[in-house]
């Protein structure tokens, strides 16, 4: 099958074609840019939900149950489950699917496991492309399960319309929840394993952190000064407009499914709100901008790696820096001059 046929079959959700197209995008196989260009006009319809949180917090189980709930409601679901790649061997053990296998015979659920392949930030470099393939294939929801995150892996926020941040009791004190980073990207907070001791404290601490943030989700606040490219958003919060989205704090027991329907309802409500107040346009514009900048930067970097003259110059400059004859910024500027001219 050539890529044209794979694309046309993937667009009507032929499972093997979807799967093969994901591999083409993930491995950047020859022709992948043409294939991507062909599917891109069909993207933008799915509600993309990121599920992130620390290792062992129950993300996979929650994703499994969220998928089951959306299926019950007659919706189709694509799942991208990311696990870490070994920085030493390049290998990976992708184990998220283990908790989702009951969906494997359901054609309305497509599950794909990915290794991070050296990318930091909680997802793989190609996750964005895989999400686009599933979106183009017509899945109503695309769920991204990140690797188990620590404090600063926030990249899923630039891929997802809605971010559900999963927390569990017993991980730390109230200073953890007011630190910068991952706590700022949640549109929905899910306190999982609610049968464990300490659940009330986690909820209270998140509530306090949200109060300090002025009742507005981190992402909406951080970007409230921006105008969307269409001028559809005013950015500033006006009292006559809809009240700002305050991230709800939900309690679940993913293992039994308790609270999962509320998580789905809340994600839907968040999407509804984004569409209503114009923030969706802005979020998707930000995603497009960061993706475009990233690709341009990749291309420049790859062009540099192929450019013998630049590589020779870089080597010479590096020796000067190492011998303390030049500082690294001056060397960087010299190299830039050489590449640009």
């Amino acid at each position, binding site marked *: 099958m050539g890529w044209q046929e794979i694309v046309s079959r993937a667009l009507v959700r032929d499972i093997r074609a979807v799967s093969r197209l994901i591999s083409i995008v993930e491995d950047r196989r020859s022709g992948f840019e043409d294939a991507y260009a062909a599917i891109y006009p069909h993207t933008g319809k799915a509600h993309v939900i990121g599920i992130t949180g620390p290792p062992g917090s129950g993300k996979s189980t929650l994703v499994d149950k969220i998928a089951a709930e959306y299926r019950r409601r007659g919706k189709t679901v694509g799942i991208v489950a990311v696990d870490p790649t070994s920085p030493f061997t390049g*290998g990976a053990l992708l184990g998220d699917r283990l908790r989702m296998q009951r969906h494997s015979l359901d054609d309305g659920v497509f599950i794909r496991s990915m290794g991070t392949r050296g990318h930091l930030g909680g997802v793989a470099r190609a996750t964005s492309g895989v999400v686009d393939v599933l979106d183009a294939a017509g899945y109503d929801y695309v769920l991204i399960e990140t690797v188990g995150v620590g404090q600063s892996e926030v990249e899923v926020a630039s891929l997802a319309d809605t971010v559900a941040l999963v927390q569990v009791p017993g991980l730390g004190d109230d200073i953890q929840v007011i630190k910068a980073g991952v706590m700022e990207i949640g549109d929905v907070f899910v306190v999982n394993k609610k049968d464990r001791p300490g659940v009330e404290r986690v909820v209270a601490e998140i509530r306090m952190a949200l109060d300090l943030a002025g009742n507005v989700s981190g992402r909406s606040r951080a970007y409230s000064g921006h105008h969307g490219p269409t001028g559809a958003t005013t950015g500033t919060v006006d009292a006559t407009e809809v009240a700002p989205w305050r991230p709800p704090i939900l309690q679940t027991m993913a293992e039994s499914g308790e609270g999962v329907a509320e998580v789905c309802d809340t994600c839907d409500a968040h999407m509804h709100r984004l569409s209503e107040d114009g923030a969706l346009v802005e979020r998707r514009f930000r995603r497009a901008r960061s993706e475009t900048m990233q690709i341009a930067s990749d291309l420049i970097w790859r062009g540099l790696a192929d450019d013998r003259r630049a590589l020779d110059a870089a080597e010479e400059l590096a020796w000067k820096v190492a011998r303390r004859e030049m500082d690294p910024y001056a060397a960087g500027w010299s190299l830039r001059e050489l590449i640009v001219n």
Partner: protein
Amino acid sequence: MDEGKKIRVLVAKPGLDGHDRGAKVVARALRDAGMEVIYTGLRQTPEQIVAAAIQEDVDVVAMSILSGAHNYLFPRVMQLLHERGVDDVLVVGGGIIPDEDIPGLKECGIAEVFTPGASTADTVKFIRENIKR
């Protein structure tokens, strides 16, 4: 020119036995050999294994059986792969498999069978040398 192609392997435990130590040892060894290993866990039906192999677009399906049901389960997986038109996936098996059963399993398309005592290095080598794409 393809970039970043990695060998992807589905490690699965078909059937009802609950002994997955061997499958985990193999999964870990393949990971350490630089492969992406999708581990699907215990008690998988042949239908589930084939569906997962297709969605994950794997190069290899590695199955472990210790229950004695290999003469049914391995051929059943091969049959389902064939029915779905999947002919470019290398399928290997392992577990407690009597020597006299091995020729029949190879006959139906299982490329190799690794029995107790086989080294994981041999498994890695076999996969590297025999993947079909």
